């Protein structure tokens, strides 16, 4: 630049809305300030999906809330079903039957595999790798057929995991069908590993690096924190259901860029397949729901408060419930993992990057806008 040229730096900047009507994000907007092709600062703009979930739950009884709790995040409905059911179970302090706990773990791990497949497909589409997108969504339909056979709905299972157990038993031939589907998912994973030398490696290696100290300070949890180097998982540190009896591993990486988050995704699908096989082999016989609930009795929530934490596929999902003696909860606070990933972590990572890297950074954090706005 000519040193005699009489302009300040601010006159060269311009602002660009990376907005909601864009195939890049989707239901979420970021306002970028650019200088040429480099991003100077970013400001997040949430709120396009805000329904006020926490107060909607105060007008409904726990059985009605079990149907409403699928819709907190549309990509992983069964995981949020389990969070709500665990909160009511702990308040009421009753014993859930053993067979119900095993079935709950099988359904939650299937839902986690399905959510990771959506992550891989959307990230490939945003980068421009169409083969990965079509393959991923093609294989996901096998799992949705399983859900339709067990619960009755392809996407929303209508409150299958309810307080007190699960609603219906698995059929007689269901474990055989689940094992066949898992073999197909193994085929899919071996195909994904062959794609590593193509465009994915070039566009995601060394992009969006998050160091470990900053990650803890900004509040990242789940796969984002494991990619930066800390070996932690709520299923091992704060166990619930039957996870303390199962044997599985926790994948971690050291660098913290987009490519290491992608590697962790693939390894987590393999660990989930291990968990499902162990649970299917050791399942006991018995009831699947507390017998007194079958005839439609009234549930009165006692006075007290609980805080329940769960490992959703995006991070730490938690619920704080307060009961006061009536049949409806007094306060029900939902903590989603995406609120912290999409506002502080994204604004930190986008500063100083190129504009062509913005989709690769955004989708590697695995965001869910419905989780953030509630």
């Amino acid at each position, binding site marked *: 630049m000519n040193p005699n040229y009489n302009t300040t730096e601010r006159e060269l900047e311009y602002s660009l809305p990376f907005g909601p009507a864009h195939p890049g994000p989707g239901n979420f907007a970021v306002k970028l300030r650019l200088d040429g092709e480099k991003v100077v600062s970013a400001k997040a703009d949430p709120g396009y*999906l805000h329904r006020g979930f926490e107060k909607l739950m105060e*007008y409904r009884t726990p059985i009605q809330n079990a149907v409403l709790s699928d819709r907190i995040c549309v990509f992983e409905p069964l995981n949020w079903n389990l969070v709500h059911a665990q909160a009511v179970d702990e308040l009421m302090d009753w014993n859930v039957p053993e067979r119900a706990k095993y079935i709950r773990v099988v359904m939650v791990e299937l839902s986690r595999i399905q959510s990771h497949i959506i992550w891989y497909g959307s990230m490939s589409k945003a980068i421009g790798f169409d083969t990965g997108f079509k393959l991923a*969504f093609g294989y996901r339909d096998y799992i949705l057929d399983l859900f339709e056979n067990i619960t009755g709905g392809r*996407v929303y299972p209508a409150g299958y995991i309810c307080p007190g157990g699960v609603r219906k038993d698995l059929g007689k031939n269901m474990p055989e069908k689940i094992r066949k589907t898992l073999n197909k998912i193994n085929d899919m994973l071996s195909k994904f590993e062959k794609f590593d030398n193509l465009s994915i490696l070039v566009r995601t290696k060394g992009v969006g690096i998050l160091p470990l100290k900053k990650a803890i300070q900004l509040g990242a949890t789940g796969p984002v924190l494991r990619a930066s180097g800390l070996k932690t998982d709520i299923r091992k540190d704060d166990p619930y259901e039957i996870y303390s009896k199962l044997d599985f591993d926790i994948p971690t990486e050291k660098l913290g860029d987009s490519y290491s988050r992608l590697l962790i995704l693939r390894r987590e699908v393999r660990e989930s397949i291990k968990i499902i096989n162990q649970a299917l082999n050791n399942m006991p016989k018995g009831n699947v729901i507390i017998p007194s609930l079958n005839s439609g009795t009234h549930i009165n929530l006692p006075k007290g408060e609980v805080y329940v934490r769960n490992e959703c596929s995006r991070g730490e999902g938690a619920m704080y419930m307060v009961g006061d003696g009536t049949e409806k909860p007094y306060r029900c606070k939902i903590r989603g993992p995406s609120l912290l990933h999409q506002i502080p972590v994204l604004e930190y990572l986008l500063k100083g990057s190129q504009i062509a890297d913005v989709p690769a950074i955004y989708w590697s954090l695995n965001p869910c806008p419905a989780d953030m706005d509630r």
Partner: protein
Amino acid sequence: MNDMFKKQEFSDKQKKVKKLKTQMKSLWVFNWFNSCGFIELIPLVGSRWDMERFGMILTSTPRHADVLFITGYQTIKSIKRAKRIYEQMPEPRIVIALGSCSMTGGMYWDSYNTIKKLDNYIPVDLYIPGCPPRPEAIFEGVQKMMEYIKNNKKMVSKS
């Protein structure tokens, strides 16, 4: 000479239907997926239920599109953006409302931030019920739309 000019006076509605008849073989869809319903629109683009064999592909700008899918509930913040997108599309255009939340408010009928009836804000041509509707149901709805156009029936809403 005067007779030739008289023959070319079509009414507004007939103009719209005549134009749509020629475009019927390839309706382009605007790529704006909003709230819950879109999770069943993505398999439509995939290989199990292929929508490209009917000529429908996704575009990234509303100025090239014919069909706008409103999938699911709309909050007050996002209905303002939807209205702007609707006015950017060139005539003739079709609006399809998917799901039960756009018909009557659905599961969030007592929420303070969602709208209850889409017809008060944007004119709607076709409703497809479900929560969310299956891909086969969406195909049946689009097929009914094509039959209406082919048999030259009156369009239901005001243009």
